[in-house]
């Protein structure tokens, strides 16, 4: 029921800028996920939308109305906190009814709203318990229920699953997805550092890095057409391999000759002017296949991690180090092959990949147009 529009939003603490020139349009009914490395300001951005942090500069509009100075409770938002933030001295029912009680709604209306939310979240047996008598997952559901009861225009989730154990996290993630489906008109903004959550829940993902937005797009768009090396390596696990090389043929199909010797033909178009340019070739670990003939890379497998459904091969290689890479990416090329391949340890393998899935980055930016 609400559009959000951020224009040139800046956040600084004293002289320290933490967010610069954030421009973002969020449409009614979208589920937007903010992801980024820790400290990138994603939670700060969410708290600015909530009204818990002042917006230093720029404007935030909800439904076309500038709300920079509107107090949090009048912005029509509800927030689910990482620590749940349930009121420990109130029963589940009172927790969920608190906002409506403060707003002095009639008792019948409050009870109806609470009962409806409790039913949807299977909290009915626990309505008279205190939060401390609930499990982590139940507390999380109460926190979500407290948001639903208020019937807000915008839902904000601040890493809501990070305090749950792995199994519960998957279950709650699916519940949130179902919740979204049941309320197609609600706008939701979801902060996480877990890219599986981001990929599965989001209509669009906002990748934050370096105090700004690195890329906005649907999950698959970010996966298939990352705009920068950072996004390329941040989305996907293990991170994308970045192999340094030079452009040796241009045209509709660009050819990159790697410093390590291999040659890759890509389906990215370049012009004559790009000839000889120093670039990084980006290959996702899961796109590698073992080749008999021509190869992008040839090397010795140092380590094999056989996970059952896939095997990760680590080949020592000179890699281009980006800020989104994890430490293994900086010294080894990683290939992810389906099936069990522990017999490959110590052997020389030749790896190639589907040309349509290769990326070329010049100065950290994609050469795709």
């Amino acid at each position: 029921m609400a559009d959000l529009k951020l224009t040139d939003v800046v956040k600084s603490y004293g002289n320290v800028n933490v967010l610069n020139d954030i421009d973002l349009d969020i449409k009614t009914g979208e589920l937007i996920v903010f992801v980024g490395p820790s400290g990138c300001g994603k939670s700060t951005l969410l708290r600015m939308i909530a009204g818990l942090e002042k917006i230093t500069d720029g404007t935030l509009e909800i439904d076309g109305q500038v709300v920079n100075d509107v107090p949090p409770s009048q912005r029509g938002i509800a927030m689910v906190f990482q620590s749940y933030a349930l009121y420990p001295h109130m029963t589940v029912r009172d927790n969920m009814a608190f906002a409506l009680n403060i707003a002095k709604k009639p008792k019948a209306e409050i009870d109806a709203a609470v009962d409806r939310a409790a039913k949807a979240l299977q909290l009915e047996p626990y309505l008279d318990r205190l939060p401390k008598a609930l499990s982590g997952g139940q507390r999380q559901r109460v926190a979500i229920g407290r948001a639903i009861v208020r019937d807000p225009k915008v839902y904000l989730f601040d890493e809501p699953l990070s305090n749950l154990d792995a199994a519960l996290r998957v279950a709650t993630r699916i519940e949130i997805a179902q919740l979204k489906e049941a309320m197609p008109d609600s706008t939701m903004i979801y902060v996480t550092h877990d890219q599986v959550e981001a990929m599965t829940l989001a209509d669009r993902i906002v990748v934050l890095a370096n105090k700004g937005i690195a890329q906005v797009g649907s999950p698959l768009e970010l996966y298939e057409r990352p705009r920068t090396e950072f996004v390329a390596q941040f989305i996907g696990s293990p991170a994308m391999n970045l192999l340094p090389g030079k452009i040796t043929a241009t045209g509709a199909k660009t050819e990159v000759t790697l410093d390590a010797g291999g040659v890759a033909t890509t389906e990215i178009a370049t012009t004559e002017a790009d000839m000889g340019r120093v670039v990084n070739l980006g290959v996702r670990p899961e796109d590698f296949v073992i080749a008999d003939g021509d190869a992008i890379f040839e090397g010795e497998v140092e380590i094999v991690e056989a996970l059952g459904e896939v095997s990760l091969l680590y080949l020592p290689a000179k890699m281009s180090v980006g800020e989104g890479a994890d430490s293994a990416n900086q010294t080894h090329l990683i290939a992810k092959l389906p099936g069990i391949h522990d017999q490959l340890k110590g052997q020389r393998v030749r790896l190639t990949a589907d040309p349509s899935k290769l990326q070329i980055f010049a100065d950290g930016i994609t050469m795709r147009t």
Partner: protein
Amino acid sequence: MQQALFALSTIIIGVFGCVAYFYFSNLLLDRMCPAKGPNAGRNINRANAIRPWLFVFPALAILSIYLLYPVFSTAYLSLHDSGGDFIGVGNYTWLAQDEKFRESLVNNLMWLLVVPAASTFFGLVAAGLTDRIKWGQLAQSLVFMPMAISFVGAAVIWKFIYDYRGDNQGEQIGLLNALVQAFGGDPQAWITLPFWNNFFLMAILIWIQTGFAMVILSAALKGISEETIEAAYLDGASPLQVFFKIKIPQIWGTIAVVWTTITVTVLKVFDIVFAMTNGQWGTQVLANLMYDWMFRGSPDFGRGSAIVVVIMLLVTPVMVWNIYNAHKESR
């Protein structure tokens, strides 16, 4: 010089005496139950059962001599008259009819109702107001300062505030009278005004205990999860509603501990009344009444002890509840 030497030697003897006690008693135990030979296992078990008692014995002994023994001794004394003859509950029947005792009981009750409530309330307000502002620390140290002053010292300070000079005694120097005169009123001898003078005395203890309440409550307020407060703001609560509906319920246990701790202090109030009015003009309290009977004029240990027993009986239930609450808090 001689006194200093005496004090020093006492300290040295005390400290080394303790060390020697622990060392030699431990050694003796090891000798008596050696951890070798045919009964090594049983000896170790036995020594381990005895050792804790060996170590807590001095503390237990001192506690019983200085706390338990006086309790029983006082109870015993309260059943005897000033000459030392047994008179049963005679002192208590006398108390029940004594005018001054009734006045003290009523005054103590007033102290009990006013001081803990006011101190806790002001402490809570001070803690709440100074909680999240920059110079809150400074304000807190100022409010806390009176805690460092002894009750008698505080009484002396407030004596100047309430000071009154009669007609021929020159200019008024009391702060309160200065204020009253500035607003056009007539100076008063504040601490002689019947009934109200009790409240002027209570103000002193409130002034002192507010700092205590503030420090404890401020620590409790800081312990409240920031996110529950933010959640309440998002839910539309005003700062006052957040304070009363979110913060106070979460520190309720601490408030109870502060309240009861001050209650115990109030039941024992003595110094302030002693220094300010000595119980004149209708301000007598139990502890000062007890002091009067114990040590003034012709001392009557029996009646004094009976008053002490009454004070003790009043304090005990509050104390028990206080300890129970404090335990609950620390869990």
